[in-house]
């Protein structure tokens, strides 16, 4: 598992920014930028699952894609096993990418409809020239078995599978090169609830068996709590709270996290005393023109003057051993 010189952190993200330019006019002059990810820093320990949650459009997926270098970051660094990868050349990047994979949100769009399952799962082996043709065929069958599909389905096309099965194929493809780090971009949000649990359990089993590290992007808070060791909450391109899962869920220090958690449905609302149900007012502001100071201040219940003018620092209010980062001027009040 920790063969690479005992690095504790598999991924280190330093002040990552991804801005998408807004172009206007026939000359495509840059008229501003959508700040999808605007200064995000966090580390992922080897073997842990870190959940990344937030509303639609807050930059979760962009963060995942920028870490994997699918999108070139505007600013900031990404270190994979201690190596800076944002400036790597194509051939070096290819070597690194054997170890980083992604599971996509939409299992209907992530598999090429005109390729057989065998071909889809085998593609990564081919590009990285792993093994001979015969050993690849063997590996493909093995991968299908690992994700719970029958090996004889190898010659079928994606449209012959259900959504859950397709997601399993996507997982098999991600596992093909034996990666150590996987970004799961809302891997279950397109699936039926009954299938969601199966896929999440599969991911969990695979993690135990192959020592994987996940960045699990989702908006389903209870699912994230179930699978993650730590959780990061994103709002408008920034991480507002980051800490151990239970800590964040039980003692959230950011008003936004509190609102999210209070919105988790409970099995029996009538018998459960629902205290402090926080209903957020308004919509998420445009990431092209984020509010001054704390980005959450127009929607926050606790807004004071400082919130409007000063951007809160992302600081540790936990212990060194059990860090709990939060970006809120009034976080101490919630301790």
């Amino acid at each position: 598992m920790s063969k690479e010189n005992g690095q504790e952190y598999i991924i280190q993200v330093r002040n990552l920014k991804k801005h998408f330019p807004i172009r206007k006019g026939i000359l495509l002059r840059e008229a501003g930028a959508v700040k999808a990810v605007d200064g995000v820093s966090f580390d992922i320990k080897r073997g842990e699952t870190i959940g990344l949650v937030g509303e639609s459009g807050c930059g979760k997926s962009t963060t995942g894609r920028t870490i994997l270098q699918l999108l070139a970051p505007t600013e900031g660094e990404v270190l994979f096993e201690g190596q800076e990868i944002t400036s790597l050349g194509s051939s070096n990047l290819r070597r690194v990418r054997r170890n980083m994979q992604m599971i996509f949100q939409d299992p209907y769009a992530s598999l090429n409809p005109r390729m057989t399952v065998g071909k889809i799962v085998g593609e990564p082996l081919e590009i990285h020239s792993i093994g001979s043709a015969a050993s690849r065929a063997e590996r493909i069958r093995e991968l299908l078995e690992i994700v719970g599909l029958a090996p004889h389905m190898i010659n079928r096309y994606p449209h012959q599978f259900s959504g859950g099965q397709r997601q399993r194929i996507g997982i098999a493809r991600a596992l093909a090169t034996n990666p150590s780090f996987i970004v799961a971009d809302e891997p279950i949000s397109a699936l039926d609830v009954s299938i969601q649990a199966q896929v999440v359990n599969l991911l969990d089993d695979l993690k135990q068996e192959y020592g994987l590290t996940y960045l699990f992007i989702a908006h389903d808070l209870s699912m994230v709590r179930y699978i993650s060791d730590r959780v990061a909450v994103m709002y408008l391109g920034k991480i507002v709270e980051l800490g151990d899962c239970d800590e964040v869920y039980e003692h959230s220090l950011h008003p936004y996290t509190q609102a999210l958690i209070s919105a988790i449905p409970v099995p029996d609302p009538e018998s459960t005393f629902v205290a402090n149900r926080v209903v957020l007012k308004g919509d998420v502001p445009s990431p092209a023109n984020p509010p001054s100071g704390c980005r959450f201040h127009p929607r926050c219940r606790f807004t004071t003057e400082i919130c409007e003018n000063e951007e809160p620092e992302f600081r540790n209010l936990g212990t060194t051993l059990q860090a709990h980062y939060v970006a809120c001027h009034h976080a101490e009040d919630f301790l």
Partner: protein
Amino acid sequence: MSLSPTTPSAAPSVTTGNNLLKTLRKLFSTPTSALGTSIVIVFVLLAIFGPLIAPYGMNEQFYDALRQPPSRSHWFGTDHLGRDVFSRVVLGARDILLLAGLGTLLAVLAGAFFGLISGYFGGMFDEGVMRFFDSLLAMPALLLALLLLGTFGPSRNSVLIVIIIVYTPIVARVVRSVVLGVKHKGFVESARLRNESLGYILGREILPSVLPALTVEAALRFSYAIFLVASLGFLGVGVQPPNPDWGLMVNEARPHVSTTPWALTFPAAAIAILVIGVNLMADGLKRALQGAD
């Protein structure tokens, strides 16, 4: 890659050959597309075996049988120069199919190339290529063709170049629009995540999704190309006499329409039937290929 054939597969292993057969079967499943496809096949056979079928040479003149109406010895009659119209129509098939076919093929290749690159990269490059193509599209095809032929001088090669220039932008647009819909899908991102080469991403991941639309567009362009070749021949700026080009034949027979209407009718009918046939086939292809997804 070769997957072991011993796999006990319950699913039908679909191959390209099977797909072709399936498409053909679908083409013959509705009467209209069956008719269209049959027409095209007959004309292609005529083009290939024309010299064996035609009873006389294309410029063989019968001075004792000028302006003959259709008869047993001259099925479509003879024109004002005593040439056998049937032979000329049969022998003319090769020229028009080759010119239109080759021109379409090259336009489709060029259009697919520009469409793929332009759609995939986007940005300024896309903008530049597409605006240039738009400017070509802004002119009516025939006008553009006349302009180009005026520059190059009338010849077979010029007609070919005209077809390519006139139809590449249209094909490129169609391909580009499909690429735009596909390039952000997970399987393309997954290929990029593996550091696949550009050629692989465009050729193996994206192109297969483009093929159905491209095939249908190619068939449509083919029918327009036939029409364009015939029109240019008719206007006298395409294939030159004494070649048996259908458009040219119509033009040559025009002053004599009162005495030899058959010399005008049969080549004109050949153009019409072939164009209709190709169109019906294109329609059938559209149903067969695009209904599949």
